[in-house]
């Protein structure tokens, strides 16, 4: 006798059980998977919806720490880029003892706010210009003021991370140091 019986459905052979009289062709175990599919599809949908809504990431930052170790000799193809965030403007400054003062002066400047917002487009252009002249530069030191908010610091870091043009991505100043000169803010 076939285990599938004459109906072609799987059955049990011999004896009597909760499933019916075994050995007969009448018993079939059809597991209805449709409700399970429904539940899983619903869970999947809500998980996908919530997963996409709040993808949390991070941007790496460090603070300056005092070190007794001797510093590396300054290179002529890199500069330290300092950005002071004042309530009404950005002040950009570049330093390197090994580079001519005139070359550095060309990259110093004040970027005032436009329509009440910091001019990140102008900042990006200025940083790109610095990167072109000093390609080994990779660090931006941000000196926020007391009124600078967290979001503005993040926007500066986004602006300074990379330059994209013609499908190419050039890393600008991905390393960021946030310095605290709050008390010295009023001093010129």
């Amino acid at each position: 006798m076939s285990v599938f019986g004459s109906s072609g459905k799987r059955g049990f052979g011999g004896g009597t059980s909760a499933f019916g009289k075994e050995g007969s062709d009448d018993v079939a175990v059809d597991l209805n998977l449709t409700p399970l599919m429904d539940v899983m599809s619903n869970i999947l949908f809500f998980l996908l919806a919530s997963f996409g809504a709040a993808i949390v990431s991070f941007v790496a930052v460090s603070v300056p720490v005092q070190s007794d170790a001797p510093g590396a000799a300054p290179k002529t193809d890199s500069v330290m880029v300092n950005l002071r965030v004042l309530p009404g403007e950005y002040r950009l400054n570049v330093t390197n003892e090994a580079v001519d003062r005139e070359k550095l002066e060309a990259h110093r400047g004040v970027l005032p706010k436009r329509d009440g917002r910091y001019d990140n487009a102008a900042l990006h252009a200025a940083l790109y210009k610095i990167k072109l002249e000093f390609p080994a530069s990779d660090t931006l030191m941000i000196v926020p003021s007391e009124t600078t908010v967290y979001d503005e610091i993040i926007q500066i870091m986004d602006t300074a991370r990379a330059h994209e043009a013609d499908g190419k991505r050039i890393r600008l100043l991905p390393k960021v140091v946030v310095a605290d000169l709050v008390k010295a803010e009023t001093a010129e």
Partner: protein
Amino acid sequence: MSWNDTGGNEYDVPLNLVALIDVLTNLLFFLMIGFAAQEIEVKNADKITLPTSTTKAEIELSVAVAITADEILIDQVPVARVVHGAIEAPRDGEKIVPIYDRLNTLRAARQAETAGLSKDDDVVFLLADKDASFALLAPVMKTAAMAGYPNFRFAVVKE
């Protein structure tokens, strides 16, 4: 009209859902794992509106410091109160004592677990509201640096 009611003959249309369930189960499993990992980091974020960023960095575990409008939490434990945008806690110079102590304790515990300094032992995952002023962030960052955490991961929401 039912599926079987065509022309009087019985037609079985067996749809094999088992393979589909396998796929769904796998998807569900990986999504839940990923979701759980995210949740570890953003438990304190319910009171915080994170800024958005173009960064593509994947989240990495480290000590979480959350600065909300009312309090400062380290790994979900409140350590200091924030009143009118200023931190109310005992200080020793520029150091905020409860934050310093808590970070030091965690650092010691982590180093005991890893038997030495590991990759993320000097990194703080900082969660702060996008409108939090630097006057509020600076003392926390400075204290963390004094406690041996000079590196930070600023929490953001991917654009």
